[in-house]
């Protein structure tokens, strides 16, 4: 395991060097290495233990460095951890740390990781993403108050350079998790000196990543400079990195077109065809599925045939081409493209294939007739629920017409304010609701385990014992082949029952000036600027 990883490391390093070298040969770096990126919102926090959102992660991943870091293809590569050893049963990780420094000059140690992880789990911290650390032995118990002694949690610094981690179950994607904000180290001295607001004061905001924050003008902009104490500072080419917080999409576009920002990621949808023609927008893969969820406890959607009929009576190709317009991929399955399968280099989705045909009106009509609603006769009025957003409305309007035309259904659409909508979905006050799911890590499990019976995020009220068993198998086995087979089988059961109706796989539209180079855009929505640079223009 270690050897192959090392080899991969060397290879990827060589590749990275090669491509960087070639790029430099073709284009010269500009004198002024400043990049302005529109983060679009004020981060709710930049305390890595407490943050939950993508915008916060885009800040934290560029000012902190964890045990691992995701590379351009979203695979975890060594960062503060120089190397690691995994026990046979897959439950024990021993990380060996490299020499690294905090921005204030202190050394980064294994104790910093232990402190941070225990802090995130401490009930008094009340971190929302504490459950991201439930993989650790006794993590959940400590966080829920069943155990009072933090020392029983499965993370221990053996010495300053060695961190031992014990998990409750073998977790194939644990090394991806250690690249996640919740798992970042913290400088205990600074955090305790600064109290709850340590990260808002520039003297206690001590970090260990590629950049460090020098000014935070709330709701306005965040200014960072290269961190000279970063262990890999040689790789960092930008001198200055500025995040703006411009929320309005058309304002972002205007600022981009007039040169106030170099990079943005929320272009207005209706403008996409033009921007695409002008080659200033690109669409990068995004690990998410846009879907409609049926309330399977209420007629007519308690009948899987009706659910399937409605799923097949949608023209997804037309929706992605004419309505959403960002190069999304029609989804005839649940798990999106871009995640690994058992065999190295294969894609879970590609090997799993598609489960039904897009826009298959004939079969849809047949299924609906079989369910007792020939040509939609006898169907109760159908209501689509969506949360207030222009794009959701546009998609709902298109689907409303398709169901009317193809199935003869009487469809209305209703929008609700975000939290009212969430509450109604949780309470089951809906027939069909718009929904989306974004992966947390690059592994199919992040999608598969959402649909387990009574799972908090499974609001369809669909439950299937066989599905749950397969998920359990996939979660506990150390055998990769067995694990992936279980997940493929589970997905098949899901698509057979169709409690959710997949529509498309997300993409990330990015407005990027041609002189902005080597920004690593993750499928998880993160932007990593540690290798980015500005070409002469």
């Amino acid at each position: 395991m270690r050897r192959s990883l090392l080899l991969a490391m060397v290879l990827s390093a060589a590749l990275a060097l090669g491509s960087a070298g070639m790029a430099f040969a073709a284009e010269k770096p500009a004198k002024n290495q400043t990049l302005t990126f529109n983060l679009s919102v004020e981060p709710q926090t930049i305390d890595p233990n407490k943050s939950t959102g993508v915008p916060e992660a885009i800040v934290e991943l560029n000012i902190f460095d964890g045990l691992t870091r995701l590379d351009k293809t979203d695979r975890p590569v060594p960062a503060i951890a120089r190397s690691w050893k995994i026990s046979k049963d897959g439950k024990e990780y021993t990380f060996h740390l490299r020499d690294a420094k905090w921005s204030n000059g202190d050394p980064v140690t294994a104790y910093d990781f232990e402190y941070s992880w225990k802090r995130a789990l401490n009930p008094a911290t009340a971190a929302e993403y504490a459950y991201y650390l439930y993989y650790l032995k006794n993590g959940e118990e400590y966080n829920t108050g069943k155990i009072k002694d933090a020392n029983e949690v499965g993370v221990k610094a053996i010495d300053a350079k060695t961190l031992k981690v014990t998990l409750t179950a073998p977790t194939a994607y644990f090394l991806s998790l250690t690249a996640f904000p919740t798992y970042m180290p913290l400088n205990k001295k600074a955090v305790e000196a600064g109290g709850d607001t340590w990260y808002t004061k520039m003297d206690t905001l001590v970090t260990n990543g590629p950049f460090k924050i020098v000014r935070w003008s709330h709701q306005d902009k965040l200014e960072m400079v290269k961190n000279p104490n970063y262990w890999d500072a040689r790789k960092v080419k930008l001198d200055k990195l500025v995040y703006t917080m411009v929320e309005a999409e058309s304002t972002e576009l205007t600022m981009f077109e007039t040169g106030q920002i170099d990079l943005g990621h929320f272009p207005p949808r209706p403008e996409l065809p033009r921007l695409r023609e002008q080659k200033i927008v690109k669409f990068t893969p995004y690990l998410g599925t846009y879907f409609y969820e049926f309330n399977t406890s209420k007629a007519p959607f308690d009948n899987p045939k009706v659910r399937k009929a409605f799923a097949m009576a949608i023209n997804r190709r037309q929706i992605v081409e004419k309505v959403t317009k960002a190069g999304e991929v029609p989804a005839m399955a649940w798990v999106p493209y871009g995640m690994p399968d058992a065999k190295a280099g294969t894609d879970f989705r590609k090997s799993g294939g598609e489960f039904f045909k897009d826009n298959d009106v004939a079969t849809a009509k047949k299924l609906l007739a079989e369910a007792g609603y020939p040509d939609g006769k006898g169907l109760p009025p159908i209501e689509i629920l969506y949360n207030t957003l222009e794009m959701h409305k546009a998609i709902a309007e298109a689907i409303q017409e398709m169901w009317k035309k193809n199935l003869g259904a009487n469809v209305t659409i209703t929008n609700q304010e975000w939290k009212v909508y969430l509450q109604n979905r949780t309470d089951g006050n809906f027939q069909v609701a718009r929904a989306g799911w974004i992966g947390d890590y690059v592994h199919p499990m992040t999608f598969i385990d959402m649909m387990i019976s009574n799972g908090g995020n499974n609001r369809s009220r669909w439950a299937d014992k066989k599905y749950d068993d397969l998920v359990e198998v996939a979660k506990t086995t150390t055998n990769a082949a067995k694990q992936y087979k279980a997940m493929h089988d589970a997905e098949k059961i899901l698509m057979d029952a169709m409690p959710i109706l997949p529509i498309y796989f997300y993409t990330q539209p990015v407005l990027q000036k041609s002189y902005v180079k080597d920004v690593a855009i993750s499928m998880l929505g993160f932007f990593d600027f540690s290798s980015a640079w500005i070409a002469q223009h």
Partner: protein
Amino acid sequence: MIFLLQYFAKRLVSIILVLWVVASATFLLMHAIPGGPFTTEKVLPEAVLKNIEVRYKLNDPLWQQYVDYMGNLLRWDLGPSFKYEGETVNNIINRSFPISAQLGLYAILLALLVGIPAGIISALKQNEWPDNLAMFGATIGFSVPSFIMASLLMFVFALKLRWLPAAMWGTPQQAVLPTLALASLPMAFFARLVRSSMLEVMNQDYIRTAKAKGLSGNTVIWRHAVKNAIMPVVTYLGPLTASIMTGSFVVERIFAIPGLGQHFVTSIYNRDYTAILGITVFYSILLVLFNFIVDIAYAFIDPRIKYVEEKE
């Protein structure tokens, strides 16, 4: 003098009552609507939610939360924001209000300085071209709301002509477009109000008499017409000043201005309870204060107005 003091005292009592009713009603309403600050798309495990509720004292009975909040409100301690971890609502207001207030004052000044003269000229040149032009402009100002105005201004002056920066806050150039967007509606309103009141006053007998007696045109207008025409303008200025100085949601959002206006709406969407209450109460204080000032201004403009009823 005694009457005046009595009046002030009575007014103060009523202001405090208003604030109490506003805070209580807002408190009730925000707890009545579905969803809380930690209702999230990815459902939180129960234990995690419990930890958070303990931390923010959301597990206390509602009346207890209400009593605590009112107690803190008396000390102007508005509590921590639920959305922005580690931020207090006092901080948010202290930081963003000056920006909104500055922009709002520019807009009010512009609206007054352009709107009132435009209205006066319109009235004096009734049905001539300056009048038609001004009233056409005012109709546009009425029917185009600020969010469309803001987008159009940005489109023309930032994108097409490149005369001004598109958005953000800091330089004088960046203040131009948002000021125009904010000012367009009150400007149109002032122009029409002044024009209409002036025409009315100019038709009154005493103005005709004054003119007939040989008082020069300008003096007549200044002494009587403008003074009377200014009444509705002053009335409108009260609530306008309060709302424009606390910022406009759409204009601040479109021009990416770090003001208070955005929080009025986003705090509700986020169910950021403390922020909703704090900002609403703050706004209410400004509103009652400015309306008080308006009432005092009435008495100066029109000495016949009396608030203190002399016993007959």
